[in-house]
């Protein structure tokens, strides 16, 4: 396990990352790499009740989110015992934090998950890719979940295996 693989999960991509984890591990196995699942989030605001009394400050919120993310990602990754997977959570501006993490971890492959449908998230993803592409010796890999076509059911579509209601009269 010499190569390093950094999987970048930004807000809004959690479900895609979890569903693409099998593909990610498959790639790590092929590249003989160790995986770091890095979850990036903005700094959470302090939580207050309706009387503006402090329920949890930013530190407590960060600890709660980090624990939840580590547990969710860690338990999903624990299934694959043949690949070393570690989970980290970083708070701050996601683009800047991703660049810092990539600089510090020096991965060979950076994996991004592409699930964005809206224009703003796509633009952010594009800017992030441009920033990461400046790093030499690093390959950008984008995991896109394949959309599965739902079976079409409706009054206009007849199942192919259903026999017709009335068979044509046989001519003697």
């Amino acid at each position: 396990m010499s190569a390093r693989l950094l999987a970048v999960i930004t807000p809004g991509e959690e479900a895609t990352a979890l569903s693409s984890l099998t593909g990610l591990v498959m790639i790590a196995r092929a590249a003989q790499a160790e995986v770091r699942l890095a979850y990036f989030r903005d700094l959470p605001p302090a939580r207050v009740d309706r009387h503006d009394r402090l329920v949890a400050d930013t530190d407590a919120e960060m600890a709660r989110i980090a624990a939840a993310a580590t547990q969710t990602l860690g338990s999903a990754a624990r299934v694959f015992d043949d690949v070393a997977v570690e989970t980290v959570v970083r708070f701050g501006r996601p683009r800047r934090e991703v660049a810092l993490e990539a600089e510090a971890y020096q991965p060979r492959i950076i994996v991004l998950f592409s699930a964005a449908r809206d224009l703003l998230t796509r633009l952010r993803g594009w800017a992030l890719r441009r920033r990461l592409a400046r790093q030499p010796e690093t390959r950008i890999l984008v995991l896109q979940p394949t959309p599965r076509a739902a079976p079409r059911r409706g009054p206009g579509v007849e199942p192919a295996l259903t026999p017709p209601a009335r068979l044509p009269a046989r001519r003697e």
Partner: protein
Amino acid sequence: MLRDLVGLVISVSPILGLLLWREQADRRQRAAAIVRADVHAGATRALEGESLLAINAHAPTAWRPGRVRLSTPTGYEPLIGRAFQTVLERVPAGYEIVIHCGGNS
């Protein structure tokens, strides 16, 4: 004389611009085709023959990096894993690898 020249330049420049743009696009497509052929040859060798792994390459432009897309039919995703190391070695810098993975990968 000068007015004729300016008129000539103005009337010819759109056509020249279009030709230059087309030439540039053709060059990019040729480069992407070469990358695709190289990756396809590597993947075919790694998988010991033709397979259901589909490879598609798009050349880089000014605003986005080049892309090599790998996809398989549902249920054949392990092919990507088997060919991935070769693909990674053959994809040039400035290209990103896009993998379409389903639930069976």
